[in-house]
């Protein structure tokens, strides 16, 4: 029966099978692996399929670049649990709360700095919600503006390096992780600047959205004390950012080692600030184990799935379909982006990156695009999908972490997020016209 199935049917069965069957709500790793196992069994027989499954999972668990996943997670978890970067928020708050919309801008700036220290969106969104949402809402900020800023700025965490998504993306597409990190920097900062501008303009025009905080609510410290406080608050995030991105940018170490240095820096800073406890040492290790175990299980399994998919000739089918889109290479690229965006709305990024990137990357190269630029366009696009309703990881995390007494509803968050989504979409167009935004920093390395 195997010969009867054409490659197109196999492609449809494999991709469609995964899409439909993950809706059962069963852990996606097992669903994806079973689709690969069954199709492989029918096409190549048991021995070959089992071998693909085992050898690919085995080699993924021994992968050196992917060690950056546990290491960056470790660093983020230590920072989150010890709270040594939280102080920066208070300092920023004091300096900016006197302006209209100042707190929302502070939230975005703080979120951007958080993003440069953490690598997983769930971490940065939940941390930002816990620290920044209540001060805004209790000071009379519009709930939509407040929660929208939190979600948009928190989601930057997966784009601005160090980001686990970039770590995972780069090897799949044959790009260096370091270059990808550097390429993500300017677009991330650009988005952050656009968010600030947007919030600033809206609150300036309509002060009800984000009223200025009156002087008496601010702390009255002398200038010198304030500066010392600022320095003390800035040291942890700067230390982390320098130890990680500095090592990568200066070419001292590949990301895996930079992540180890970053983790060490986080631990040393936590000890210096007297926040490191035995309990945190245990919990941080367990949380790191949990996150990296689930990421790497999906990674290994998708690697096996793609192995079966490619051996069955399905890669060529997708290739032909996308290449035959009328309207030239930009139309083909748009189709890829739209498909990934829709997938990103429904499925967690881990699955998308591991399945789609190996399939899509050769097409992007054949279309004549720079793989680094296209990779970052895709990551920015996915980043947008994570905050697009109805299914949006970031929104769910924000809603889930928000203290109930604030009364922030799902509608508030969705209403607040839409303008930010439009900003990201416009930015994607800008990055297409001026690819230098993405390619400039990597070209310096």
């Amino acid at each position, binding site marked *: 029966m195997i010969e009867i199935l054409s490659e197109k049917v196999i492609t449809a069965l494999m991709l469609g099978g995964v899409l439909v069957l993950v809706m059962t709500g069963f852990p996606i790793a097992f669903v994806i692996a079973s689709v690969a196992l069954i199709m492989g069994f029918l096409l190549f027989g048991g021995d070959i399929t089992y071998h693909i499954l085992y050898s690919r999972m085995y080699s993924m668990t021994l992968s050196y670049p992917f060690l950056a996943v546990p290491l960056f997670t470790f660093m983020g978890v230590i920072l989150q649990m010890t709270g040594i970067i939280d102080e920066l928020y208070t300092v920023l708050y004091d300096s900016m709360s006197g302006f209209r919309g100042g707190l929302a801008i502070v939230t975005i700036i703080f979120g951007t700095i958080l993003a440069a220290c953490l690598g997983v969106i769930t971490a940065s969104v939940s941390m930002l919600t816990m620290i920044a949402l209540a001060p805004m809402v209790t000071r009379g900020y519009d709930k939509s503006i407040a929660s929208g800023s939190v979600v948009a700025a928190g989601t930057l965490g997966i784009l601005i390096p160090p980001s686990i998504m970039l770590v995972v993306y780069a090897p799949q597409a044959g790009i260096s992780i370091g270059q990808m990190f550097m390429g993500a920097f300017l677009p991330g900062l650009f988005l952050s600047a656009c968010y600030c501008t947007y919030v600033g303009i809206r609150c300036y025009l309509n002060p009800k959205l984000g009223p200025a905080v009156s002087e008496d609510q601010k702390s009255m410290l002398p200038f010198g004390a304030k500066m010392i406080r600022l320095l003390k608050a800035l040291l942890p995030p700067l230390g982390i950012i320098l130890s990680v991105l500095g090592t990568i940018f200066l070419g001292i170490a590949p990301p895996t080692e930079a992540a180890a*240095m970053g983790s060490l820096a986080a631990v040393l800073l936590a000890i210096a600030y007297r926040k490191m406890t035995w309990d945190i040492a245990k919990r941080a290790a367990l949380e790191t184990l949990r996150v990296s175990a689930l990421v790497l299980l999906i990674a290994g399994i998708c690697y096996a799935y793609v192995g079966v998919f490619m051996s069955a000739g399905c890669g060529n089918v997708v290739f032909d379909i996308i290449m035959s889109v009328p309207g030239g290479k930009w139309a083909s690229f748009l189709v890829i982006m739209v498909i990934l965006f829709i997938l990103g709305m429904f499925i967690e990024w881990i699955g998308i990156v591991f399945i789609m990137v190996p399939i899509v990357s050769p097409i992007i190269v054949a279309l004549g695009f720079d793989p680094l630029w296209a990779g970052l366009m895709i990551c920015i696009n996915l980043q947008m999908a994570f905050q697009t309703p109805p299914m949006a990881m970031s929104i769910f995390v924000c809603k889930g972490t928000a203290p109930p007494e604030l009364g922030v509803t799902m509608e508030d968050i969705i209403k607040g997020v839409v303008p930010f989504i439009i900003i990201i979409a416009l930015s994607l167009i800008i990055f297409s016209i001026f690819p230098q935004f993405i390619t400039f920093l990597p070209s310096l390395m």
Partner: protein
Amino acid sequence: MIFLRKILKGIDTMSKYAGLSARWLTWLLVLVGAYETILRHWFNAPTVWAYDTLCMAGGAVYIMGWSYCYLIDSHVRVDLFYTRLSEKNKAIMDIISSLIFFFPLMIVLVWISSKWAVKAWRIDEIMIATYWYPPAAPFRTVFALGSLLLLLQGVARFIRDLYFVTRGEHLD
């Protein structure tokens, strides 16, 4: 029933301790990773053992974490529809899905990974990524063990779901 409950508790305990003990390897990753980086770049004295040690320690973290993640139910699900189901319907879905997606897959994985582990011990297989040439058998054994633990945790979940659906109450 008491016997069954004890067995399930035993499986839970194994998964839990797999996670609780393997977590210390994350500290090893940090310390060895930083040590190697500092030695290589500032003292120009890289070690021969760090690369393989890091890879194997990382691998052990993931593999030992698999069953732990399943114990605390944190493997990623697409819960678009799943969250809207009642507790009982969730259990029914999981029972059906386990039969189709979990058991055949995991039995294959446990079988083939054990086969490779046995083979690696028998032929003294070595890893060839670096000049250190460590034996591959211990890591292959860890892989087989982790897969077995994951399978057992799946069995435990399955029995609990089945009990809940048929008896209308939780087994424990």
